């Protein structure tokens, strides 16, 4: 199942954004008219720490080609330490996915503050481009969802 076989590859990308920083960052990107690809679907979460590994796997299962998690910069967490825990968890999870043979680059963590509309837009553009280059996610999807 290569990209060539498909007429056009439209990636599905899930972005988990923390309510306090990154979601506001996305908002700012929007109100500043900084574009980011429509392939990105944002899911707002109370804190980056709310995202458990199952969320990420679930997104892949149901057909996501890339998953990105955005939270407050370390030190700026609304709940003071949430993103520090998230950082450890995601590091371990990404390492495990790499170990299982899932292409690097399908997952990413980026810290985006409420003031960084520019960064948000740039990150998303970059990430989408990366996913385009990796092509469809075949290793972590459920075959039943592919029709």
């Amino acid at each position, binding site marked *: 199942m290569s990209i060539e076989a498909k007429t056009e590859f439209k990636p599905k990308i899930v972005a988990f954004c923390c309510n306090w920083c990154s979601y506001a960052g996305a908002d700012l990107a929007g109100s500043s008219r900084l574009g980011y690809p429509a392939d990105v679907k944002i899911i707002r979460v109370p804190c980056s720490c709310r995202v458990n590994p199952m969320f990420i796997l679930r997104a892949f*299962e149901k057909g996501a080609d890339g998953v990105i998690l955005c939270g407050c910069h370390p030190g700026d967490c609304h709940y003071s330490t949430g993103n*520090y825990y998230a950082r450890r968890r995601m590091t371990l999870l990404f390492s495990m996915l790499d170990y*299982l*043979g899932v292409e690097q680059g399908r997952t990413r963590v980026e810290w985006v503050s409420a003031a960084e509309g520019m960064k948000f837009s740039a990150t998303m553009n970059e990430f989408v481009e990366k996913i385009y280059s990796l092509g469809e996610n075949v290793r972590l999807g459920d075959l039943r969802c592919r029709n």
Partner: protein
Amino acid sequence: MQELVNHAKELLTSGSVARVLGWKTGDLPYNPEPAYFDSAEALEEFVYNGFCGANLSKYMIEASKLEGKTLIFLKPCDTYSFNQLLKEHRIDRDKAWIVGVGCHGKLDAEQIRCQGIKGIEAVTEAGAQLQIQTFYGDRTIDYSSALLERCHVCKGKEHQIYDELIGESEETNDEERFSQVAGIEQLNPEEKFAFFQKELSKCIRCNACRNVCPACSCRKCVFDSNKFDSAQKANVDSFEEKMFHIIRAFHVAGRCTDCGECSRVCPQGIPLHLFNRKFIKDIDELYGEFKAGEDAEAKGPLTDFTFDDAEPGIVAERG
């Protein structure tokens, strides 16, 4: 072994313990089962031999709810699990009387069969050898060739927690603990994926790995929930098994003592320890060496952090 039985009888009759948690002679040479003994008479069926690999720590969760003290026999590596359960307040230290037993590596009947031995009638432990009597002739093999996987990476002969010790232990490690994990890390993504796909497609979702795991002591597992479709039970090669095993390993990351029970019980012989050990290796490398169950107090690596932890991007940077 007689020493263990005698001592257990003593404690039972004196009333210092209400029951004994040990292993009971099986009906085949290699299948003793975990059992409770509540009388000196019942202890006649007690056995402790090379096939007593089962880690009894988890049974202590139920035993903690019972009246009176339970004498529990723990091998050196089992004590890590015991400590970890203690740390998570799943068991009651005051309800246990721990007798640390000597261990020089535990055997795996599967490893014997792998050597082409069929129809096992009797197994005799003779030092570094195993004499096996079968319906198709007798065989002698090296004791070490029939060890459980976990014994090849033995954590050492020291008991981490005990009330008294009986018997001598011997370290049996003859392999580098992380060599298998490191070997897989060296592969390219296609090879890694092919390897795990082949192993995991054998999974029958029997949940034996979860139910035997001393770290999996949740009263209701997320995979038993009917509320959302993670409890799929479907046996499809595409995703279900990966989801289950990644999440299970993740849930015990930082708490897994690498006791190896998951790999021991898997009916399909899936090397499940490779998941747990990968997390342990990463934790050691990224957050400093950590041995779950070494004590009952230290903070686990996933419930802790430092300000300058590595960023998740390190996975890509390491290559």
